[in-house]
């Protein structure tokens, strides 16, 4: 699809050209998010940070909105960040990215700073992104004159404040705000918000939206590299298993990440300039070369679903089947034409 651009606001530095890494062997050894953060054992969101910045490289500024990847990551005395990093407020990832990109652009255009493409990435959790920060992210994705990436690390709860349900939490999940009780077994009754799909559909000038899982590291890193290279505001949604909030042995982080894709709960895709491409396992499921696993295997592995009865598992399976059988595009557009 050809994109017609409107008049741009003055001169602009082209984004960094980050070629995809063909195999894991091509991945650089350099680390820009290093040891010494205070996240949980097996924290997949920490892994998402590490892979993200490894893919982006050293000429990057990262803005971190309030959440686990703020509170558990940086401590006054110390930090795990090698690249420049700055805190932003819970609902401000979109604004932080916009402000940083705008500041750099103005200073470079006006000759107050050396011209150079600097990646700007703002990260937010599902609480900061899918809930509180949605309007600011939406606004950022309309600012086509700025090169920026917003990465939402979705661990399906307000994990930093001790696991409270968010708009991105799955149906029925136990959380400290939705505990199963004697009268109400299911306190979390909504279906997970379709954030990446919503943002892609709602922002036709945003050139790149993708979903990723840190369990598929190469896929994730190449999507980050693509998002940063294409220019303009972009959005990536990562689903990160959370050993604390999902209640499982931390060694299963990787496996549960894979399972989320294999069960069809987390379809992997990318939408570039208006073209949708499914990725990896998701593509195979769609093509019929891989059989979608039952969600049961996924649910029973996590303490947050330990209160589920057979009818809850059946409901979860039926809703997941809908995503694949009724949605116009699985995981992207939740309706079909009449």
């Amino acid at each position: 699809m050809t994109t017609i651009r409107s008049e741009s606001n003055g001169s602009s530095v082209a984004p960094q050209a980050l070629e995809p890494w063909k195999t894991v062997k091509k991945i650089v050894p350099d680390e820009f998010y290093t040891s010494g953060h205070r996240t949980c054992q097996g924290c997949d969101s920490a892994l998402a940070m590490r892979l993200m910045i490894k893919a982006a490289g050293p000429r990057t500024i990262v803005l971190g909105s309030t959440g686990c990847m703020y509170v558990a990551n940086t401590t006054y005395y110390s930090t795990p960040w090698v690249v420049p990093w700055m805190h932003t407020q819970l609902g401000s990832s979109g604004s932080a990215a916009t402000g940083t990109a705008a500041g750099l652009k103005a200073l470079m255009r006006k000759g107050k700073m050396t011209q150079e493409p600097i990646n700007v990435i703002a990260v937010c959790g599902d609480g900061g992104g899918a809930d509180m920060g949605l309007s600011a992210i939406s606004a950022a994705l309309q600012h086509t004159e700025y090169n920026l990436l917003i990465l939402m690390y979705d661990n399906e709860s307000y994990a930093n404040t001790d696991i409270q349900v968010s708009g991105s939490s799955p149906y029925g999940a136990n959380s400290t705000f939705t505990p199963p009780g004697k009268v109400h077994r299911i306190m979390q009754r909504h279906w997970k918000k379709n954030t990446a799909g919503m943002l892609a559909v709602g922002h036709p000038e945003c050139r790149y939206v993708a979903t990723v899982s840190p369990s598929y590291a190469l896929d994730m890193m190449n999507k980050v590299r693509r998002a940063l290279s294409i220019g303009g505001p972009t959005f990536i949604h990562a689903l990160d298993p959370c050993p604390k909030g999902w209640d499982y042995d931390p060694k299963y982080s990787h496996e549960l990440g894979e399972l989320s894709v294999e069960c069809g709960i987390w379809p992997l895709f990318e939408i570039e300039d208006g073209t949708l491409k499914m990725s990896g396992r998701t593509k195979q499921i769609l093509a019929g070369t891989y059989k979608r696993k039952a969600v049961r295997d996924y649910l029973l592995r996590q303490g947050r679903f330990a209160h589920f009865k057979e009818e809850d598992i059946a409901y979860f399976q039926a809703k997941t089947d809908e995503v694949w059988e009724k949605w116009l595009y699985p995981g992207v557009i939740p309706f079909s034409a009449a």
Partner: protein
Amino acid sequence: MKPSDAALARKPAPAKGPGGYPGESEELISGSEAVAHACRLADVDVITAYPIRPYDTVMQFVSQMISNGDFDCEYIIAESEHSQFEIVKHASAVGARVFAGSSGVGWLYAFEALAVTAGLRLPLVAMVGNRALDDPGAFGVEHNDALAVRDLGWLLAWVETAQEALDTALIAYRVAEDHRVLLPCALSCDGNFLTHSQSIVKVPSKAMVERFLPPYDRAERLLHPDNPITVAPQVNEDWLMEIRRQNDMGMRRARDVISEAYAEFNGVFGRGGEPFIERYMMDDAEIALVGMGTLAMPVKVAVRKMRAQGRKVGFVRVRWFRPFPTVELQQALAGVQAVGVIDRDYGFGSAFHSGVLANELRAALYPLERRPRVVSLVAGLGGREVSTDNVMAIADRVFDAASGKAANDQETYWIGVRE
């Protein structure tokens, strides 16, 4: 693009400024437009806008200057005040000079961003077009909006005229960006009376402004790949007192920096007056009235009238509320018998049910050995006019307190309210 030159080219030959620099032009402009000129002259890099009356007029002028090519900056229309202030906060962190503004509940919608901007020591200059807080929706001036940030580390200035708005905006950048200070500054302009009223303003040339205002240099705090720092990591109880103390010291140091800035401003531009407060007919005054913003206009008229009647009354206009001009007010008011503080704000449930300025002033005068009585008055809320007659009635109460006729310093009087 040199917008100042372009602007000057359209004008008749400019007069020479006091230093022999290409001089000022005269313009018939509102307070909002004056602040927009200050942004242009300060070569602000990033501006964010969001509509709310009455401050939004400044953005209407900014956007027109940009579209006409008179001003080069990144101009972002945010989707909320919260984003508006978050965006400039982050632009400031990468070294951009920034400007934003708001009014009333819009300012409060941004409150979280306002708090962290001060905590982060980012020298944003913001215009507050003072407006009553909802509900009910109202658009006239009250000062409670800007005053809401008074304890967070914001520098707060109140101005009386469009000229002072322009001048103070330039001073604000210089003070806020000084490495001894590094705090955001809110420039309060009374809604309607200042934001929407046009008067003759001297608009300086860019060369004059450059002489006064050095470029913003964030130095070792710059967020840039060449200076890999971590900004605002989470802290526990082991750290926050030290950090608050740093902010406290930044605010304390602002006193000297403001004084220096006014001295320099007076030198370059030949105007600017005294930092912190303006003293009006205070020599030999027996009582003083105190207030902020455009309230000064009817008060000055009333003071002149009373002086003509032989009544020894003066007026002190507070120009900077933060840092609070404790010493200046002590000096200015130590000799009077009573002070009438006219608040265009309210402090429901506060000591004596007074407004914010009255209580702050009481605290400042308390240590004086011979302290004047303080009469607290609330007037002009919601943009209601304060008339000369109102001020004369206020003065009567203050004279009563001065002569000990009535214990008027134990009450707060609402002036011009229907019973």
